[in-house]
Structures are given as C-alpha cells and as structure tokens.
C-alpha cells in the first residue's frame, strides 16, 4: 500500500504570509509550489524549493491564472496561445529555483480556477498540456480524475496522476461537492484520516448522500492554509503510516 500526499506551498506574497510551509513540508511527499501569478513571490518560492529539496519532497509547478487579487480563484478567459505562454513562463520561473536548490520540477498541477476550468474547458486544457509537452514531456500531469486536462495529457503522451481530496465531500458520481454547498468541506481529522486510508486501500468511501463510492487516486491532496487544515494533514499522514502505507512521491524517487 503506497500513496503520495500533495499540498499547495509558497502561497505567501511579499508582506503577506499564508500557510505554514515549514510544517506542511514535513507532512507531504509532493509540493505544489505557487509560481507567482496567483501567489508566491520569488523569496517564498526559493524557500519552498530549498526546504522541499532538503526533505526529498517532489517539486511541482502550481500554475495559475494571472490574478493576484483574486488568488487565481476567478475564471479568466485567456486565449489558448496566451495561456500556453503563461504556463511556460511559470514552469520556467519555478524550474530556476528548483534547480538552484538542487532539485527539479517533476510535475504540473494547475491551481484554483484554472484547475476547475480545465476539468471541462477543452481549449484551455489543451493549452496547458501544450505548454507542459513543449517544456518537458517528462513532467507528470496532476489533476482531477476524469478531467479534460488528464485525458488530453495522457493522449499527448504525458504521465498522469489522479488525485483525491482528503477534506472534501464527494457526490454519488464521485465528483467534488461544490464549495458553495453546505458540508462540502470535511473537518474531523480522525474521520478524514480514516477515509484516506480507505481510499488508498481501494475500499469504498461515503459520498455526501451516504451512498458508497470508489475514488481512485494516486495522490491525496491535503491543505495547510489554516491551523485546522494543517492538523488534518498531519492526522492523515500519521494514520496512513500507522496503517502501513508507504508515502512516496508519485513521480518516483526525487
């Protein structure tokens, strides 16, 4: 039984601090490092890369829309060619810091509204895939199972990694319950940890309506941007290890 834990890192920006990167990097095996468009200034990116490299945590590019004020959480109708440039720019920027830290970028995970958009938005999904393939076809695509992003990435010859969310409720169709709906985010660390163990074992978990569903995932996403979330992430890691799971980066050895 092996799996990977991923989380968003380097989400501070200049004077504004967000997230407990130092703690989170001791919890996860893969770090989705913000690349400056929605969060992450050069200093925050450098620090995250240095810590990730030291701890053997795989570095991924968390590329987003260029929208600092909206934290990349608002859809932007970027023309595909521009989006390809935006993604290339962000991967390249992060790669510089990863390399200097003695590591490298191993995968790409779109952030926020871009993540959500390319579940269905074929043109934008293709634009992101195009950027990744052009930069380095050895990079892995991390995203939502069943998304256009992963389907197109696979067709383009990229390795893909499907992720599940530790603290999110699922519909009976095994898709995420919208954040706008009540009960979309789970809070009980023990419940969440047990749920993650079941997912990793390939056992069914409970959907929001109480039905049993299977969520197939190669990585589990945890959060660290609130003290509660960091506690959940820690509980998930501890329980998985207690149950004998091997936590290794989904990209392989770093």
């Amino acid at each position: 039984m092996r799996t990977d834990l991923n989380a968003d890192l380097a989400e501070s920006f200049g004077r504004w601090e967000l997230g407990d990167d130092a703690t989170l990097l001791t919890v996860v095996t893969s770090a989705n490092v913000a690349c400056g468009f929605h969060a992450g200034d050069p200093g925050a990116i450098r620090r995250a890369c240095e810590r990730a490299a030291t701890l053997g945590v795989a570095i991924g590019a968390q590329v987003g829309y260029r929208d600092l004020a909206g934290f990349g959480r608002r859809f932007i109708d970027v023309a595909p060619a521009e989006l390809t440039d935006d993604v290339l720019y962000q991967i390249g920027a992060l790669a510089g810091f990863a390399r200097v830290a003695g590591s490298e970028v191993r995968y790409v995970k779109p952030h926020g509204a871009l993540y959500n958009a390319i579940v269905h938005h074929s043109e934008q999904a293709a634009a992101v895939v195009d950027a990744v393939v052009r930069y380095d076809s050895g990079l892995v695509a991390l995203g939502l199972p069943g998304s256009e992003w992963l389907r197109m990435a696979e067709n383009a010859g990229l390795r893909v990694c499907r992720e599940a969310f530790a603290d999110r409720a699922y519909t009976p169709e095994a898709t995420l319950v919208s954040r706008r709906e009540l009960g979309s985010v789970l809070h009980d660390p023990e419940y969440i940890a047990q749920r993650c163990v079941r997912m990793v074992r390939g056992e069914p978990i409970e959907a929001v309506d109480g039905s049993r569903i299977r969520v197939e995932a190669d990585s589990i996403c945890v959060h660290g941007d609130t003290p509660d979330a960091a506690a959940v992430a820690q509980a998930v890691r501890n329980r998985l290890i207690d149950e004998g799971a091997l936590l290794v980066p989904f990209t392989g050895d770093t």
Partner: protein
Amino acid sequence: MKTLIDLNADAGESFGRWKLGDDAALLPQVSSVNVACGWHAGDPATMRRSVELATSNGVSLGAHPGLPDLTGFGRRSMALTPVEAADACLYQYGALRGFVEAASADLAHVKPHGAFYGLTLRDPEVAIAIAESVTAVDPDLMLVLLAGPTAERVLADGFRVAREAFADLDYDDNGHIIIEPNPEVKDPEQCAQQAVDVLNGGVTSVNGKALDVDADTVCLHGDRPNAPDIARAIRARFQQHSVRIAPMREVIATRNQ
C-alpha cells in the same frame, strides 16, 4: 506640552486572500485612518470595507497612496519624477475617493506610504507636486508629511500640511524615521512614551541624539502585530496627561488660531 493631537494609523492593508492588520480592533482607537489604495496593498473590496469601517467608527478618512510595488509592500524606494509621483498620487486618491463618495463620507487627507513617504522627504519637489495634484481636486485636502524641513517648506508654499511624528518607529540622527519592512511586536509602553515625548516637542534618535519635533498628528502602523495594544497604551497615557485626541483638521484649525 501640547494637549490636542491627532492619532492616525494605516489600515486597509489586506490584499485579496491575504489578511493583514486587525482594523476592526484598531480603528476605534484612532482619530484618522490612512487607507491603502491598491498599489502597495488594498484590493477594491478591502478599500470599500475600510471606508465603511472608518465611517461607522467616526474616524476621519485619508488616502494612503503607495509606490507601484505589491511584492515589496511599497517599502522599497523607487525613482519617480515629481510628475510621476503626482500622477501616482492622484490616481490612487481618485480610486479611494470613489468608495468614499459612495459611502457619503469625506476624504480629509492624503499621506504617502512607506518608500513614497520617504521620497517626499528626500525630494521636496515631489512633496510639492503631490500637494498641487491633490489640492487641484479638493483645496481643503491636507497632506501628511513627516514633521521637519520638507513639511515646513510645503506649508510655507501655502498648502495644508499635517506634520507627523511616529510613536512606533525609531528616528535616525537626521530626524528621519527608520522604516521597518516587516514591523514586529513593540513594547506598547515604549511607544506611548515616545508619543508623549512628541507632545513635549522632542524625541531621541537611535544614537541618543535629541531631536526637536513639532507635530500635529502621531502615527502607529496597522501591520505591527500588536498595533491595537499600542494604540490603547497611547490613549491611556494621553488621558493621564489630559491630552485630547481629535481629527487632524481640528488640530490644524487650532494651530492656525
């Protein structure tokens, strides 16, 4: 000892997902607030909420324009010409004024932020250019500048100037404040003592040099983690000395009598 002073604080310095400062706790403690206008901090929603919060607390409103440097929080010096500085100031003032008018409130003053404030100190031409640009929109508008030669010069040119001193920052031997990129917790009593020193007409530099200060308003920084505690300590000390806190317009009107 002066017995009438304005107490001002910077606020509205959050930006989107990133929160900074405890404005709800700080604003009831001060008489004037400087609201960030989007270039160094403050997104539109934060600006609207800051105006609403100031209005509901009866605090006098001012614009706090910064240099175009979100990453550096406007605390890194940039080389702006006087014309560029005036345009930057007017642009941000106008943006904030939109929210202020929508709230049926008044914008009483303009105070450049961080390194922009430092630029006005080093280059009086910049201070004058700013004063000209904003008073062209509203002749009653007050410009907040560090108490000292530049402020006196702009004042002598006929502009309304609120001369400012700092409770929570150290001074160098030239009488300039030493800006901290990331303000840390500071002893509230020490800040309160410095505020009292200002009212007595002098502060001490970091090297122990005595500096004369003639100020109309005392500032503390909203992004200092214990800013509300500092404000409370200053208020308590002012009360002991029977010093009344009032918006800078009233302080200046009294000064001119």
